[in-house]
């Protein structure tokens, strides 16, 4: 037995590579749907969005770029699916220049291909405006002053969804997809807190600690925290049969979870064989 344990200690590293390759590759094709245990932060965010009345308009702000896409984009897809299933109408703005491309991709996938909605009636993309928090402060007073035209250079007046929306006061719910500055902190400080608008946010995992105080003080309804949060939200969509299958974050989290577990197993095996060898040396 101890012979077997010792050889275990000096496995050829290529078997480790093979196992890692399999463990990461398989869940991408056949998602195992490992039991993702949604945590409270994600549940609060899910319930807040689920309870938005049908006629309320929802503002989503795309404040991230390609480098943080793996963590944040799955959240954008998930909440768009959730809102469109509930029949809510969505107004999108971007405080990051790259956010515009992220918004276009998400709308193309969900609004056009999955739900086949009509632009200008069910959803509108007002595009990117420079100025960071100055833009938020601007739309608390007036939308037309800051977004005269949408991302397709169409006058706001001609967009049916936008008439009746003079300023942020006419918006029922705000969701900020945020990878840093400007992001959810600025949305809470300049919009949701002064105007008392229900708000939730999706952030990269590094920012969670910075945003947590806003949840405990009731200014934010839950947080979707990094890729794990996105996977939990996708799981909630499946549990409430809003969407049949888990999304990209869920599949990636499957691969991450198993890979991490396998690496820890390697460490444990390595130590067991290390002790077997040391016990044998002590004998001689």
């Amino acid at each position, binding site marked *: 037995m101890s012979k077997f344990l010792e050889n275990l200690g000096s*496995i050829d*590293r290529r078997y*480790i*590579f093979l*196992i*890692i*390759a399999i463990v*990461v590759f398989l869940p991408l094709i056949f998602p195992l749907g*490992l*039991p*993702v*245990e949604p*945590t*409270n932060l994600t549940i609060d965010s899910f319930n807040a969005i689920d309870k938005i009345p049908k006629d309320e308009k929802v503002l989503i702000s795309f404040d991230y770029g390609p480098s943080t896409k793996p963590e944040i984009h799955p959240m954008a897809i998930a909440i768009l699916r959730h809102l469109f299933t509930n029949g809510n109408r969505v107004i999108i703005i971007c405080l990051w220049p790259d956010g515009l491309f992220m918004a276009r991709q998400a709308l193309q996938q969900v609004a056009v291909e999955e739900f086949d909605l009509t632009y200008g009636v069910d959803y509108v993309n007002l595009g990117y405006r420079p100025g960071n928090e100055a833009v938020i402060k601007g739309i608390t007073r007036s939308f037309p002053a800051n977004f005269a035209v949408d991302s*397709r*250079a*169409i006058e706001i007046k001609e967009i049916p969804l936008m008439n009746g929306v003079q300023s942020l006061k006419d918006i029922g719910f705000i969701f900020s997809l945020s990878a840093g500055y400007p992001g959810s902190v600025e949305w809470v400080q300049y919009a949701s807190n002064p105007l008392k608008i229900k708000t939730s946010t999706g952030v990269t*995992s590094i920012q969670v*600690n910075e945003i947590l105080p806003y949840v405990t003080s009731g200014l934010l309804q839950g947080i979707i925290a990094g890729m*794990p949060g996105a*996977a*939990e939200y996708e799981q909630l969509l499946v549990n409430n049969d809003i969407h049949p299958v888990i999304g990209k974050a869920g599949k990636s*989290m499957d691969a*991450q*979870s198993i*890979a*991490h*577990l*396998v*690496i*820890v197993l*390697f*460490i444990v*095996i*390595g*130590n067991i064989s*290390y*002790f077997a060898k040391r016990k044998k040396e002590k004998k001689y």
Partner: protein
Amino acid sequence: MFLKRYIPLAIVFVVGVTMLASWFIPHSPFDAFEIHATQWFDIIASFAMILGALNLLKIQSSKLIHRKRDWQYSLAAILGFFLTLTFGFILKGGHFLVLKDVGNNPTAVVNELSQELQIDNKIANNIYAIPETGDGIKIKKQYYTQNKAIEFKNRLETAGAVVEVKEVIWGGHLQQNNTYFAWIFKNVFTPLSATMFALLAFFVASASYRAFKVRNLEATILLVAGIIIMIGRVPLGVFITNWIPRTSFFSFLRLEILQEWIYQYPNAAGARAIMIGIGLGIVGTSLRVILGIEKSFLGEK
């Protein structure tokens, strides 16, 4: 002797002191020192690249000429080098069309256009309203070869439009898509660097398998901290210690909370000590270099 030894040391001292002073003197010309100094460095580095390229070609071609082991691959390196250089300086691609006038049948022009590229209502109504005098609107489709662009031009002209073929200007061709240089970036350069980066996933596993051993107390601390963080950051970790209620006093023992605490306090403390050490090391080395105490890199004699 004077030229080889003392002038270089004088240059190091003068440049070092003025650069250091520029941090404390906002008055011009010191405020612009940092920008110009780094751009001077970039220019020197770019000139030096010629030496690097010549050295690379010399070694690869000597392997090729003397048929040393693996000479065939040196051929691949040299070909790759000169191919990229031609795309950088000689062969550009990136041809595109500028629509000057729509002529009397705009709908024919628009549906001709829509076969070639995706048209949405914004571009459509721009086409209808082309100003006579302006230099027309650029059609957002670029072609590698000129005759491909001319083919599309002829089809548009039969539909009555006035079209001009243009090329991306030199220097701008690095970022534009459908230039040969951009093709090399997208299909050769990006996959190679992304895959090399991805190798780390395998090496992280093999390194932790080999190194995380309970050899002594220090190695054990390394191992325990690593495992707690690894497991605590995946849903599995939350799953394992979910039985500890969040509200109880022991909630900090929940893996996802414990890993956050370890990362924010003991890890931050250790990292801070290392940072201060590195900071002093760099300040010390820089002072020794400026004051000429450390001068071996300039050659003793």
